[in-house]
């Protein structure tokens, strides 16, 4: 067979035929078109990079056979690994004690109390009522409100103060320190015998919080059981023992939680007693029906019998020797006074309050006062002016201030503080729930004068924790009215030498106030005043963490209520402080480079984040010196977050041209990139990729191509971990190349020539590091085209050869990022595309003078041979088919494709017979191979039976038939007309006749006859 050749000037049969053939590419016909093609392909791909399309490639073939692909190279796995996720839940040592014992007791009391059938839970009702803040003029809280508030307080205390750690428990409180009743007695006695000198009190156990709670629970159950068995005496005894626990504050930090737990137990018992007396009051006689007491019954309604029982209870508890349990038991039974007297038990409350002075331990005293306050409110002893609570507060405050008073060394209360081994500030923190409860109770009465009085109770210079609690409970309106005054109060507590705790507490206060401002805006004239007041005090602080905390909060405040100028001033001050602190740290340790502590860094990062969101324009942002400086002080995760936010901000804006900006953004991108390593989760990786991609995209050097290329070089080394970025860089380089062409056309100066050479060299180096063989091949071919645009023949040749080598070496199982990564159909399709494109390229690219014109072509054929096609794969056939017209094209006297400056094979090998012969030989081989493959019998796949099997077989058969038709077509295009070729082609078409509709085959047959028959133009 002979390959069809156009004789220049005589016939154009091949040219026409080829132009009509599928594999013809219009873009290759001129440099300009090719350049446009490359540019468009690159731009299209750039736009889709990083969009995260998880679909497989969709090969878009439009009419002009230009290739634009929407695809995504990265494969996103379906499982996402939460590597560092999962906030560690802090295990709470004390279990939630709230519901169980109460319910258990109440249910138990319900079930089998022998006296009556129904149990009216009067007074024990705890309907959830919305918290009413009293109207102006001060209405009293109802009992339900108080209980509601109490429960919230308990929960809050529980949460705030529970934790891990062991508690010291002295043997004296044998109920807690015993393991089991029987053992304990013996143990305790033995211990006593052994340590007669040290005495029982010195013996201490250390148990965990959880265990303590468990033992308390057990005690609670014992009480419940005793009550159920009508052994009320024992129940009372146990209850007294439980309340005695509150006398022991050596448990230290556990005390608030202990208080919560114990009060629940004694309240339960109190309720049981109340119910019992109620029932006693109802029964008119042993055989009569019981008439329930009205809800607001008077003492006069109560039967003598019930009154007696009530009195008996009170007598019983008044004989308790120790002060603390006696008081707590009386408070537990406080409600029962109602059976004896009509008026609320105000006298008793006052007496108890005074008796509380006898409790020397400030912590225990604080909490019992808190409980008195609660009982006072719940039993309706309070007046509209909150006098009772104020009384209690008056008792409480001196004790509180004395604890905080550093100079009160001689005071006996000091020994209690130091017995726990705590600092005063820590100790006072334990008293905070009590104080907060008292102040909140006062705050229920919204009379402002009242709260003023409360504030004054703090003394001339109220202590900061006190202020903090007061501010927490004050209503927003009050704070709004008196904002400046409050702030000056806080500032007044500062002295020259402030400890970090003090400063921290002050910071807390400021933050509490600012938080209130979040919801209620301060008055117009006050806004700036507030800021300046606070800043006057805060500025002097040298401790960086509280400072930053306040700064960060105030940032929001400024953004909401003030102008940009203030924001800048604030941030400048922050930068100054940070700088000063770092300088000081550097002085202390000149060898180490100083860094902020992690919490401080977090504040800085958050502030920067807020600023970034506010400014929205990255150029403006990066021109702010303080911004950049603060960004540089960050390390670690904070730095990554900061970088990410900056990049985000940049991406939303326009092109980045400012070199300073660029540098900063590059640094930010570098940080984000460096954060991604082998163990990062996919989300992190994707996000980082997206940020970097957008950053690189947004960089615009205008006409300075060299600078751009330099940037790309830098970027390549900086972002070596991210594949898509590398891909993008190649496309960008290619765009540079096309850009140059658009500028200078073919008229190159030596400089431009060197430049495009450098660009292609860049591509050559970068492409092998991209993952995914199909991506690489695509890039190679595109780069080769770009090189050809500028007539860089050697580069193009190198690129094509690299492509072919790559395709070859990517087969097999050991290849990294090779064909094996792709699903079989896709890889076959990709291979086919590659062959087609490469074929087109080879038409234009001149062959090698030394090693043979068809060296690369042969290489390509070998690649097709070695590729692991599926059995009966149509794509394999099609690859061969694609090459047949290509080889024919290569021997034409005038190539169908022509590019400026490229001396293609038609010039180089013009007239050489050996060239033509070799081509013919290759064509022959190709046709042979293709024909053989196309003729293989389709084997039915035995595994697929039934419907599916039939369909699959049918579709494969159809494909094969079509391939045959194409083969026939290709032969017709490529070969000179001859009867043998015609026969061959017809024979091939016959194969298809079995499966395809007749008219399709007829058309093909006709066409073949046209080209190969006797009346063909070349014949």
């Amino acid at each position, binding site marked *: 067979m002979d390959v069809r050749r156009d004789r220049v000037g005589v016939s154009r049969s091949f040219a026409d035929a080829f132009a009509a053939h599928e594999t013809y590419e219009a873009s290759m016909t001129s440099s300009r078109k090719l350049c446009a093609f490359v540019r468009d392909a690159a731009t299209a791909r750039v736009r889709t990079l990083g969009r995260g399309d998880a679909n497989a490639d969709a090969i878009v073939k439009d009419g002009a056979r230009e290739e634009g692909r929407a695809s995504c190279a990265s494969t996103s796995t379906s499982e996402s690994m939460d590597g560092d996720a999962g906030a560690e839940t802090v295990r709470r040592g004390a279990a939630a004690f709230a519901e169980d014992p109460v319910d258990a007791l109440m249910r138990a009391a319900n079930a089998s109390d022998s006296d009556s059938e129904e149990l009216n839970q009067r007074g024990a009702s705890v309907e959830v009522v919305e918290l009413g803040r009293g109207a102006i003029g001060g209405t009293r809280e109802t009992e339900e409100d108080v209980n509601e508030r109490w429960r919230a307080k308990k929960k809050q205390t529980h949460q705030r103060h529970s934790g891990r750690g062991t508690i010291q428990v002295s043997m004296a409180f044998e109920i807690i320190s015993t393991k089991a009743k029987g053992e304990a007695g013996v143990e305790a006695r033995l211990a006593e015998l052994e340590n007669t*000198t*040290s*005495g029982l*009190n*010195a013996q201490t156990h250390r148990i965990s919080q959880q265990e303590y709670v468990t033992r308390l629970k057990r005690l609670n159950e014992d009480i419940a059981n005793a009550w159920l068995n009508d052994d009320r005496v024992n129940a009372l005894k146990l209850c007294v023992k439980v309340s005695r626990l509150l*006398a022991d504050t050596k448990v230290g930090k556990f005390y608030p939680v202990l208080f919560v737990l114990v009060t629940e137990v004694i309240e339960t018992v109190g309720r049981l007693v109340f119910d019992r007396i109620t029932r006693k009051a109802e029964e008119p006689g042993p055989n009569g029906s019981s008439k329930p007491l009205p809800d607001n019954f008077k003492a006069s309604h109560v039967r*003598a*019998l019930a009154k*007696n029982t009530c*009195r008996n209870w*009170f*007598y019983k508890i*008044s*004989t308790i*020797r*120790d*002060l*603390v349990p*006696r008081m707590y038991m009386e408070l537990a039974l406080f409600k029962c*006074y109602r059976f*004896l*007297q009509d008026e609320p038990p105000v*006298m*008793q409350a*006052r*007496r108890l309050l*005074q*008796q509380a*002075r*006898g*409790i*020397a*331990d400030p912590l*225990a005293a604080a909490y019992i006062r808190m409980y008195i306050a609660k009982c006072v409110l719940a039993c309706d002893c309070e007046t509209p002016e909150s006098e009772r609570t104020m009384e209690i507060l008056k008792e409480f405050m001196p*004790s509180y201030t*004395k604890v905080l008073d550093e100079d009160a060394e001689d*005071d*006996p*209360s000091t*020994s*209690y503080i130091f017995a726990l081994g705590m600092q005063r500030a820590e100790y006072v923190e334990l008293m905070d729930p009590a104080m907060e409860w008292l102040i909140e109770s006062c705050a229920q009465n919204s009379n402002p004068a009242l709260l003023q009085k409360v504030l004054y109770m703090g003394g001339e210079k109220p202590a900061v924790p006190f202020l903090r609690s007061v501010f927490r409970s004050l209503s927003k309106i009050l704070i709004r009215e008196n904002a400046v005054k409050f702030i000056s109060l806080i500032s007044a507590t500062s002295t020259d030498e402030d400890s970090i705790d003090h400063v921290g507490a002050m910071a807390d206060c400021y933050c509490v106030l600012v938080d209130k401002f979040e919801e209620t805006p301060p008055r117009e004239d006050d806004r700036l005043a507030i800021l300046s007041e606070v800043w006057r005090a805060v500025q002097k602080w040298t401790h960086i963490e509280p400072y930053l905390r306040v700064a960060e909060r105030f940032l929001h405040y400024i953004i909401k209520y003030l102008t940009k100028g203030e924001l800048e001033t604030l941030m400048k001050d922050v930068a100054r402080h940070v700088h000063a602190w770092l300088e000081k740290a550097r002085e202390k340790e000149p060898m180490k480079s100083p860094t902020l502590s992690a919490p401080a860094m977090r504040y800085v990062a958050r502030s920067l984040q807020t600023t970034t969101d506010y400014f929205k324009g990255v150029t403006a942002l990066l021109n702010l010196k303080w911004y950049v400086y603060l960004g540089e002080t960050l390390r670690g995760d904070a730095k990554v977050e900061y970088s990410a936010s900056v990049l985000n901000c940049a991406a939303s804006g326009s092109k980045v041209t400012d070199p300073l900006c660029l540098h900063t953004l590059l640094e930010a991108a570098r940080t984000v990139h460096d954060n991604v390593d082998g163990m990062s989760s996919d989300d992190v990786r994707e996000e980082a990729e997206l940020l970097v991609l957008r950053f690189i995209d947004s960089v615009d050097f205008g006409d300075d191509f060299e600078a751009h290329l330099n940037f790309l070089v830098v970027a390549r080394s900086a972002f070596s971990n991210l594949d898509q970025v590398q891909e993008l860089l190649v496309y960008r380089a290619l765009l540079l190349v096309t850009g140059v062409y658009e500028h200078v056309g073919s008229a190159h100066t030596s400089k431009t020539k060197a430049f495009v050479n450098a660009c292609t060299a860049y591509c050559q180096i970068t492409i092998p590091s991209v993952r995914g063989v199909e991506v690489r091949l695509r890039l190679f071919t595109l780069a080769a085209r770009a090189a050809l645009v500028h007539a860089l023949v050697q580069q193009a040749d190198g690129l094509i050869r690299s492509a072919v080598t790559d395709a070859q070496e990517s087969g097999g199982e050991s290849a990294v990022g090779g064909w094996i990564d792709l699903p079989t159909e896709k890889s076959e399709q990709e291979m086919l595309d590659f062959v087609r494109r490469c074929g087109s390229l080879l038409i234009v690219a001149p062959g090698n003078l030394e090693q043979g014109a068809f060296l690369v072509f042969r290489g390509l054929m070998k690649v097709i041979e070695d590729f692991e096609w599926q059995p009966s794969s149509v794509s394999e056939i099609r690859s061969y088919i694609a090459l047949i017209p290509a080889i024919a094209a290569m021997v034409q006297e005038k190539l169908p494709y022509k590019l400026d400056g490229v001396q293609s094979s038609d010039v180089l090998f013009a007239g050489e017979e050996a060239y033509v012969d070799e081509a013919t030989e290759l064509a022959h081989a190709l046709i042979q191979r293709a024909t053989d493959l196309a003729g293989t019998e389709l084997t039915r796949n035995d595994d697929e039976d039934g419907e599916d099997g039939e369909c699959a077989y049918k579709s494969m058969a159809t494909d094969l038939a079509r391939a045959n038709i194409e083969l026939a077509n290709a032969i017709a295009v490529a070969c000179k007309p001859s009867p043998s070729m015609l026969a061959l082609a017809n024979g091939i078409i016959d194969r298809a006749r079995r499966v395809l509709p007749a008219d399709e085959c007829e058309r093909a047959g006709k066409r073949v006859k046209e080209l190969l028959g006797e009346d063909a133009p070349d014949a």
Partner: protein
Amino acid sequence: MSRVDVFLDAVDSKYRAGDVVRGEVVATIEREDAPFNHQGVVVTACGSVAMRVGEGRVTMLEALFTSVDPVSVLDVQSVLAPPGRLATGVHKFPFSFPLRAFPASMPVYETFHGQNTQVVYAIDAEVARPILRGGSLTTGMCEFLVESTPDEEDAENVRASGRVEFEITEEQQDLGPAPGALATEGFLVRGYFDKTSWFLEEAITGALTVVRSAAPLKAIEIELCRIEGCTTSEGQALSETSPVQFTQVADGDCARGTEIPIHFVIPRLFTCPSVQAATFSISFMLRVLCVFEPINPGNKEPVAVRAIPIQLYRGGPSVKPKALEL
């Protein structure tokens, strides 16, 4: 099993001298015992003052020889039903008798459970039956409480009694083996009780203040003591002091200078109006105990004491039970 119970009408089984004690004897006869032939249903009420010599005062040998005769206060017997027969079921026999001392000159003493002196009133109901026939049904001695009549004079005494103040210092105190700084620098606790004579229904009130103290305090307690005296048949007069109740007033090293209230509820069964009778006497005393922390833990704690004698009187119903109030 058949049983007999006695029920008194008063709440709490508490009666005042001069009251009429009413109640009923309820005999429940089971089928197995019916018909119950008995020799009469008798109810007996008796009260007496029983004394013994305290163990601490005399040796064992002496205790054998010394004896104190009990003083009988009440002895009433009444036959509720003549001998007869009781059928199955519940039978009620009401009764009543006045609570009057016998002999009439004797005052009705209040119920008192002391250490050495016991004033006990009890009632006993019996459905008599000879032993050979199965024995009687009896309730056994059921105690009931008696309060003495309030005296107008007593009330006057109480009203007239004035404040008693006290001071406790390191002088005249036995502070134990190792008082340390207490003995040298000392301490001062000042306080007062509102009255020296109290009604039993009231709570003993007062206040105290720790002015200064060289050593930290452990606790301050108020102790109510009773002084029981008895005259033996030989004519020997012995008396013994024992505590009745402790009430802690201050727990720990309380703040200096703050006034801490005293509120001591007088226990019911273990106190009675101060009595001075021919053969026995009961009187009361308050002691303020200041317990200090020992110098070395393990040592005995130094205790400082101040005793204040008081008189207790029965207030009667006119006195509101102010124990439960201020």
